[in-house]
């Protein structure tokens, strides 16, 4: 990159807020996904004005610009795929306003998801979207990817909890869209921007809705001898329209990995468990829990445990929310998918995944938001074995194709990023993609914002892209 740009950035932000040395840039070439891309310079704005000036500079020099929060994303959304300026929001992390009476909070994009809840729970409120990375991930990233989480089954995903945004347009103009009020007349630009993966504008402030903490919560762990029994339970819970607050599936294989770490008492000899939570009024949860118990028994649950206190509940959730990470105990690398299917298709789809796994010679772990039909098959591979890596990607592609075939989606909450951009044609026609390109053009005509994301490079093919994996083992001496 032109050293003039770096010097200009240093002038704007101060030297301590600009990184350009090779060893520093290497720290921003990865995120939670398996993708890799190195920026040319990394900047740490503290104010909206900082962002404006960074964007103006990028514009002047026609340099790509990509936003990043904590880099916990699973689709490569926060990676500078085409180099350029990576704007990291970790220092723009103030909660600007808490308005309990109106149940709103206004925060900067670098605020950690869970910190909003921590700031308002004393008043009986919380921020409902709870991605598994909520202890680290930031609101800016949540907004960009339209993040979900276990409890989005009842409470909705990020977009349902974001009412207004302040954004810096690729031109450098600062714009406020939506607001603290509901259903602001005009096109719902907030709804469009949430989930746009940082390709339309850079979010510098977020107005969120706060949710009342429920009066009571009950957490159930249903234990099964077969995967089918568990998935059929989910299908029936859905069909009976019970809608718990969360309904999570973990197969036996994942359970054993997780249990080694949390010691939550997950049964090691089971084929699958469902972690089901109901919350709301005391009366409501008793009724719901009873109904769920019925369904579980009907589908041959071996046992249904009820968490006896908040400590046990937290332990069960700790197991669930850290499950992906726990997989690291088994394998240095894993590839996790994010497909969605109609809940009526759950049993058949899990059987299909098993078949695909066998075909490619992988044991595929399944731990996912069953209530939403949002699958997260995990394929373990050793990055030192390129053949294995390629087979993992191929198996994942086949699973995705199946999800689409049954009327589903290639991503329920992780975003398309650059991981799934080539899968978009599986779901959308060229006309659909053109309409989306039109939207991008309206905001971001020069294409400088987070280029290389969402849209496929190749035209109209479902070819599977294989990235050269960066982590090559040290040559044995």
């Amino acid at each position, binding site marked *: 990159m032109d050293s003039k740009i770096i010097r200009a950035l240093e002038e704007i932000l101060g030297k301590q807020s600009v990184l350009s040395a090779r060893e520093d840039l290497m720290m921003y070439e990865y995120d939670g996904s398996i993708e890799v891309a190195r920026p040319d310079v990394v900047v740490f704005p503290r104010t909206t004005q900082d962002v404006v000036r960074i964007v103006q500079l990028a514009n002047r020099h026609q340099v790509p610009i990509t936003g990043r929060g904590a880099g916990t994303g699973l689709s490569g959304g926060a990676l500078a795929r085409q180099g350029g300026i990576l704007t990291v929001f970790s220092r723009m992390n103030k909660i600007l306003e808490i*308005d*309990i*009476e*109106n149940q709103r909070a206004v925060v900067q994009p670098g605020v950690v998801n869970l910190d909003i809840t921590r700031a308002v729970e004393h008043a009986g409120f919380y921020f409902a979207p709870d991605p598994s990375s909520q202890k680290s991930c930031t609101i800016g990233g949540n907004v960009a990817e*339209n993040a*979900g989480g276990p409890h989005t089954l009842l409470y909705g995903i990020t*977009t*349902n909890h974001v009412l207004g945004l302040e954004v810096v347009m690729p031109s450098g103009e600062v*714009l406020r869209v939506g607001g*603290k*009020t*509901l*259903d602001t*007349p*005009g*096109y*719902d*630009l907030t*709804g*469009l921007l949430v*989930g*746009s993966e940082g390709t339309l504008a850079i979010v510098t402030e977020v107005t969120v809705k706060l949710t*009342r903490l*429920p009066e009571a919560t009950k957490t159930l762990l249903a234990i099964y001898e077969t995967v089918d029994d568990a998935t059929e339970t989910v299908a029936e819970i*859905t*069909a009976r*329209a019970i*809608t718990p607050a969360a309904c999570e599936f973990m197969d036996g294989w994942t359970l054993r990995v997780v249990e080694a770490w949390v010691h939550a008492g997950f049964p090691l000899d089971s084929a699958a468990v469902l972690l089901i939570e109901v919350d*709301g*009024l005391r*009366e409501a949860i008793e*009724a719901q829990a009873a109904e769920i118990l019925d369904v579980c028994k009907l589908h041959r649950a071996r046992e249904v445990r009820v968490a006896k206190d908040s400590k046990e509940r937290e332990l069960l959730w700790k197991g669930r929310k850290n499950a992906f990470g726990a997989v690291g105990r088994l394998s240095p690398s894993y590839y996790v998918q994010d497909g969605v299917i*109609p*809940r*009526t298709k759950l049993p058949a789809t899990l059987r299909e995944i098993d078949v695909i796994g066998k075909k490619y010679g992988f044991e595929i772990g399944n731990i996912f*938001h069953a209530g*939403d*039909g*949002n699958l997260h098959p995990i394929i373990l591979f050793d990055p030192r074995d390129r053949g294995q890596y390629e087979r993992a990607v191929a198996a994942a592609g086949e699973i995705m194709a199946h999800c689409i075939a049954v*009327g*589903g*989606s290639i*991503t*329920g909450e992780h975003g*398309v990023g650059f991981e799934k951009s080539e899968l978009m044609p599986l*779901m959308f*026609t060229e*006309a*659909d*993609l*053109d*309409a*989306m390109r*039109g*939207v*991008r*053009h*309206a*905001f971001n005509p020069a294409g400088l914002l987070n280029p290389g994301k*969402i849209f496929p490079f190749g035209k109209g093919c479902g070819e599977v892209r294989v990235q050269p994996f960066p982590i090559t083992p040290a040559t044995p001496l």
Partner: protein
Amino acid sequence: MSPATSISLSRLREISGAAHVVEDPAQLTAFEIDGLRPTAAVAPASVDELAEIIRFAASEQLALVPCGGRTKLAMGMPPARFDIAVSSARLNRVLAFDPGDLTLGVEAGISIAALNAQLAEKGQFLPLRVAFEDSATIGGIIATNSSSPLRHAFGGPRDYVLGMEFVTGEGFPTKSGGRVVKSVAGYDIHKLLIGSLGTLGVITRVNFKTFPLPPAQRTFVASFAAPEPVLAFCRALAQSVLQPWLVEVVDPAAAAVLSSDAYRLPAGKWCVVTAACGKPSIVERHARDLPGFAERAQAAEFVALSDAQKSSLLGRVREFPRHARDASPAATLVRFSVLPTQIPALLSRMRQIAEQNQLPLAMLVRASGFIFAALMPPEKNADTLRRLTAAAQEFFRAADDSSARAMIEWCPSELKRELSVWGPPRDDLALMRSLKNEFDPRGILSPGRFHGGL
């Protein structure tokens, strides 16, 4: 009839069949918007037909306005041009209903009443209890983002529409979102279409999340002598763990509008209508706790309604715009999006404005943050129109001062010559305009009807 017009008509007949093209001026009055009559109305039988009509219109620069039950054509500004009304009357099928997945895909022309009747067979429903329920279609409800009292518990369409299909101003059938309950692939263009009044595309299919019908429900009315305690009651309720499905505040004038022989709201009082739904035990809990809230807020009275009373009242609450319009020849209905804490001040300011302009005012407040204010002069003449204009402009100012947003949902056409029903232009207008240009580069979709002349 100009030669150009006759070519258009023959092309429309070619595409959809003569039986589905309305050319008779007398019949076309039914498609008028603010007195503007189109040259033709056409009802395509398929998305392909619709796309072809739009491509044709685009090539000929003919302006289209999509319509369904035609219950809300009076919303928005008059179109700058109006050549063809495109009716969704023949696009009214349920395309996919998976009760086991609680998901639904329907064509835009299906009426909400027909749809909910079909869903009810499987014990499900859509929480769109909107005005003109008997004839309003899904397409129109979504395009106008019609408000439902059930928004309190379910959010708006943006919260349960999963995806959409639509035809752009260039005639491309397009989709966004998905059919499953969760999908973040691509841009949520369907969110843009909600409330866009047919200016970005013609909606052909909407995918929804459906919800289970509650096994039990009960409706309650608490009445108060003054507005302050009413709002205190609502605030206390909002901070509580209770989960009513709706919380509607009715001012004394609106109470008169909403009263019927079947149920009369207490005269001269401010009332709060709440409903609890779900399992009997949940309804019981609300029935037990709500009187306490009412008492603490010094309610004059708290009653639970009988089924007949409930049906009458909730029906009239839902149809408030219709009743307000029936009650006045120049009814002007303004919708405010407002923060709950701002509601008291805004209400009193609005009452002042109405009083100063000698206009009767009825107000219905959705406690989660909406005010529907109906100015209802007993007659329509130059003087009342002048006063309506003045009051409406002051309403916009009042909204601005309380960080609220206002728009006029209904008003006499004459008023639209004096002001924009969308209120003063906003700073995101330029962006909205570029989006409009992307979807409708020729400006043929409902031109001029939206915010900022889009």
